[in-house]
């Protein structure tokens, strides 16, 4: 069977479990020691949450019963997991990765995936993008992750396992099967009994399995045979489930029905720019970098990878952007670069590298300016005299709920 040419675009980041990272921060003297971090599972039983490499080598695995782990590694230092601290560290790490790419999937607190497809003019090479994400993750966690880049989740994960911390290991383009050939079948994400039967058949590595056709594997192992066939050739899914939490400073608009025409999308640019400018103004910040994300429709009948559903691009202007007028130009250029493969249903505009807004001098030519409190007192007197509803202040209601001014604005007498 011919090996299809699949571009390597999925990056996998592996790092110590977050609970171990926190344990290392709290007890730096435990480096190189067997450490078990435990906690209660959903059923209320004490289980292993994370195990250090020394404990791992003795057979301890996450999810194992605590008693079993104690038997396997009796000299291990036992610590209790602090779930609140883990959640906070997870949040920081997610934000760090999300600032590099919107197509990020968080794994099991010990790995993460990033789809490297997308538009990043500053880093055309996928390895440089992966390294950029790795540096961001390192900054957030305080530990150095290993990075693997491959055409599928499994091949990228294997590459990350083989890479040293702080290094990027690339699966050669179109040679995923050769790359995985020496990987043991017992380390494949398949049921253990399938692995044991493979050993009994004398198939010890992925390379051994590639010699067998998919039909034969399916006949022996059923659906697991098909999975095995794909894993050994690096043909497993390259799809990730992106982390959808909105960025700390951004706007998100859900379009009514899919939009296929980029010209039509540009009509919403001004509204997006105004929304982001309001958010920036509320936080008192300016954007050093803005990112536009266009998410497409997910068709269950025709599943597509994340890069087919989503387009994103970034602009880092020479000066920070704070107002809608300033945001409009870069935003239109991003819309001009947009490449739509599926109808767009969600448009997101986010600001990163937030800095203090540039100082502007306003109103120097205006002369006397009314004090807001003085005006408000005058308005109060008018309301006493003529009743409420004479003088209004209006504020844009987020989300454009209607067409008439009474619906588009929040009207208040104060």
């Amino acid at each position, binding site marked *: 069977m011919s090996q299809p040419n699949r571009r390597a675009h999925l990056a996998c980041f592996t790092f110590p479990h977050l609970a171990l990272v926190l344990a290392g921060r709290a007890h730096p003297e435990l480096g190189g020691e067997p450490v078990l971090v435990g906690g209660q599972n959903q059923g209320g039983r004490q289980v292993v949450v994370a195990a250090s490499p020394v404990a791992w080598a003795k057979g301890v695995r996450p999810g194992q019963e605590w008693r079993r782990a104690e038997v396997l590694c009796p000299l291990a230092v036992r610590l209790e997991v602090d779930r609140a601290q883990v959640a906070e560290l997870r949040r920081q790490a997610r934000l760090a990765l999300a600032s590099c790419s919107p197509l990020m999937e968080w794994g099991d607190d010990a790995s993460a995936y990033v789809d490297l497809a997308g538009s990043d003019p500053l880093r055309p090479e996928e390895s440089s993008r992966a390294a950029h994400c790795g540096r961001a993750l390192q900054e957030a966690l305080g530990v150095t992750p290993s990075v693997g880049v491959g055409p599928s989740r499994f091949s990228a994960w294997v590459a990350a396992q083989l890479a040293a911390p702080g290094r990027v290991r690339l699966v050669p383009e179109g040679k995923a099967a050769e790359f995985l050939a020496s990987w043991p079948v017992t380390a494949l994400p398949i049921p253990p009994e399938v692995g044991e039967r493979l050993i009994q058949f004398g198939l010890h590595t992925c390379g051994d399995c590639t010699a067998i056709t998919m039909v034969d594997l399916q006949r022996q192992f059923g659906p697991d045979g098909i999975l095995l066939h794909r894993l050994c050739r690096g043909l497993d899914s390259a799809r990730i489930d992106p982390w959808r939490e909105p960025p700390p400073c951004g706007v998100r608009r859900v379009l009514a029905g899919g939009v296929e025409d980029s*010209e039509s999308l*540009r*009509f*919403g*640019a*001004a*509204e997006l720019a105004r929304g982001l400018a309001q958010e920036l103004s509320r936080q008192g910040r300016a954007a050093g970098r803005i990112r536009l994300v266009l998410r497409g429709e997910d068709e269950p009948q025709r599943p597509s990878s994340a890069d087919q559903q989503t387009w994103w691009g970034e602009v880092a202007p020479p000066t920070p952007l704070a107002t*809608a*007028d300033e945001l*409009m*130009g870069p935003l*239109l250029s991003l819309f001009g670069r947009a490449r739509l493969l599926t109808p767009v249903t969600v448009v997101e505009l986010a600001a990163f590298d937030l800095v203090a807004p540039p100082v502007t001098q*306003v*109103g120097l*030519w*205006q*002369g*006397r*300016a*009314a*004090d*807001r409190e*003085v*005006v408000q*007192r*005058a*308005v109060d*007197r*008018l309301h006493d*005299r*003529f009743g409420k*509803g*004479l*003088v*209004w*202040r*209006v*504020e*844009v209601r987020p989300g454009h709920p209607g067409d008439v*001014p009474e619906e*588009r*604005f929040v009207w208040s007498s104060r």
Partner: protein
Amino acid sequence: MGGFPVSSELAWREQRGPSEPEAGALALALSSLNFRYGPGTVHIGAPPLLQGLATGVSALDDITGCQGLPRGRISRLTGGSSSGAFELGLALAAAVSRSAAVAIIDFTLGLDPGHVEAYGGELNNCWLVRPRRPEEGWAAARALAKVGVALCLLVAGDCSRLTPRAAPAALLTALSEGDCAGLLLGGRLIPAALKERICLELECWRLNWALAHGDVCGLRLGVQVSRSHLGAPGASCRLQLNFPRPYQLRVGLEELGELTAGEELAGELLQVAGGGGR
């Protein structure tokens, strides 16, 4: 001798000032004129330099005679349908609201504040008055002008019958006290009491539409001073008003330089014919 003549001149003015009791009928006449046409209508000696509220468009500021909309006075924007006068007024209000407070007295009760916002205005600085009766609107305009809003925008409908007779004069006094510029928009049939107190009248007419991507993205309009208490009328300029469109990089007013002879002639012909362009 350098300083002596100055003090002597001051003493001479003080002796002949209109506030002295012997002025009698003259003082009464001056007071009446100042009440009717606004404080400072009649001056002793040279008139004081009137300050203008800068619009941010130098071409427009240059033709008004006071580098902007005159403070303490009422200005008016006129023009036929599609002339751009109304939009110009909203764009000016938006420009002022970016750095100062603006009161919008909406006698029509139908103004969409989204227009001001679309031209880049700061709604936080805008106070929108929607009077149920005209006298409420005038009272609110006076109150807000006195406390120092920079611009009082009067969006007038047909208020010829309903405007209290003394309201325009009182507003003029309030504008002067608060150093506020008044701008009247719309209202073909305005009462005589208001019409005679208008200090500056700017007439707008459409030159042509600005197109982009096959769509109307703006309006090129001519603006001419048709009536002025500040200087000779007739000065004109050409502006482009960029409508708020999503793809528009620049929204609001833009200068286009002076009118050409042909454009002035076209404007004159339209005026003579009473056409809709002007």
